[in-house]
């Protein structure tokens, strides 16, 4: 049967590609990896000493290369630990488990022109777009915003390879990107893609709205997964157990920590796989999957990113 569960991989190279970013090259322990489509991600599973982390990372290698995958991890000191584990604990030769690739951020191939806005480590999904853009000879521009004291991986290489098609904006050198100028005067059929912090996504979306550019020409992926919040308790009514969700842990992680198996793919509130039924308690919805009606009903939660608005939730699990 042609199914892939988790893939066992070995770390065959680690490279510090920016002050805060490490790139990891992963090879399968046996066989070949599957090719993937531009914009795909994998979920990397890390067995920390106190908890198991699962983080989604974009594949940034050439989609046609089935010998190895590459991911890049930005150290997020204020985050919930996965990136710290990758930076501090993972060494050359270590083995990791990854999910098969899934894609929630594919290029709109019918576009006449593609404009990419990358913020910091948000460059990663676009690195898998570029070989295919080149192969298919499509028109594109890459606008890469970073702080060279922290991020800016591959900026020199990209500038060298793509010349005028790649504009770099190093905030630490005082260079900033005039988003409105980039977006104005673009031809019919142009699509815009953003991967980076929420502020960049918001800025591009707001500019598009202001300029009357259709919303369906704007595509984005937030690379941040769950953000921390206040601790709360969750009761699983069918199993009759109660769990604590720590401030720096997501509800999904707390459930997984208690061996409660919840299907999931993106761990960022996008794919909809991990939806759970809520029977009691207020929800602070942080996902972009549920419709407004579903959110208002208060009967469902995406545990990968959303949390209790009060101190307690009861789930129908």
């Amino acid at each position: 049967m042609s199914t892939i569960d988790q893939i066992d991989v070995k770390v065959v190279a680690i490279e510090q590609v920016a002050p805060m970013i490490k790139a990891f090259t992963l090879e399968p322990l046996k066989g070949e990896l599957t090719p993937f489509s531009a914009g795909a991600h994998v979920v990397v599973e890390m067995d920390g000493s106190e908890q198991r982390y699962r983080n989604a990372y974009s594949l940034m290698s050439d989609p046609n290369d089935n010998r190895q995958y590459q991911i890049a991890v930005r150290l997020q000191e204020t985050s919930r630990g996965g990136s710290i584990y990758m930076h501090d604990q993972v060494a050359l030769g270590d083995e990791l488990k990854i999910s098969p690739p899934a894609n929630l951020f594919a290029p709109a191939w019918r576009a006449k022109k593609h404009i990419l806005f990358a913020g910091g480590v948000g460059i990663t999904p676009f690195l898998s777009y570029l070989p295919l853009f080149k192969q298919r000879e499509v028109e594109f521009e890459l606008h890469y915003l970073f702080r060279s004291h922290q991020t800016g991986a591959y900026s020199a290489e990209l500038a060298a390879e793509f010349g005028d098609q790649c504009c770099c904006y190093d905030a630490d050198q005082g260079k900033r990107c005039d988003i409105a100028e980039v977006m104005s005067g673009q031809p019919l059929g142009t699509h815009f893609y953003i991967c980076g912090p929420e502020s960049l996504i918001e800025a591009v979306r707001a500019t598009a709205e202001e300029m009357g550019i259709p919303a369906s020409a704007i595509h984005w992926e937030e690379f941040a997964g769950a953000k921390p919040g206040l601790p709360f308790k969750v009761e699983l009514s069918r199993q009759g157990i109660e769990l604590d969700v720590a401030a720096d842990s997501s509800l999904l992680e707390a459930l997984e920590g208690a061996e409660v198996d919840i299907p999931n793919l993106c761990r960022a509130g996008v794919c909809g796989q991990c939806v759970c039924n809520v029977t009691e308690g207020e929800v602070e919805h942080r996902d972009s999957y549920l419709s407004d009606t579903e959110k208002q009903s208060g009967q469902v939660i995406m545990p990968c990113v959303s949390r209790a608005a009060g101190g307690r939730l009861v789930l129908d699990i």
Partner: protein
Amino acid sequence: MQTEQLNGVASKPAYGPVELNPKSSFHLFVAEQLLPKAMECLYDACQPNEGRKEKAVVEDASDPELRNLLATFPLNGTLYLAGTEPFLWRVASHARALGLCPEQIRLMAPVTRERHLFCCHCHTITEGVTYSPYACSGCGAMLEVTDHFSRLHGAYFSFQANAEDSADMPEQREVN
């Protein structure tokens, strides 16, 4: 047949009232044959601050005038269409191929309730259909009209009305 008595079929287009897009820098009003009154009103109501507006009557998606107008269509333009249902979808599909996003194309309710019918047996499209069953202009079969609509064909699905029992021809009814 699975498509008998279809109620509220999801593929049947719904045409709501068309509103102007105030953010557009170019408003293009295109009608088949004659600019209907509703579109004239919309055109008159359109007072773009900085942008421009144009209206045109064209024969079909391949009309050279339409091609010229779309050749300079901006990324934030809006295309308003009026005409028969197949015309609306043919021009819309042509505009999509040029790069317009769905929300840039606004369709006014078709000017007639005449349908194009796709005969599932011989794949001929019969025009000007207002009642069911209706004779296929290709194979002659009496076709039951359904609400299952293809944007690609600009036509509704239809099948031989009395295929199960030749003596059992449904009564003629108007289609809306």
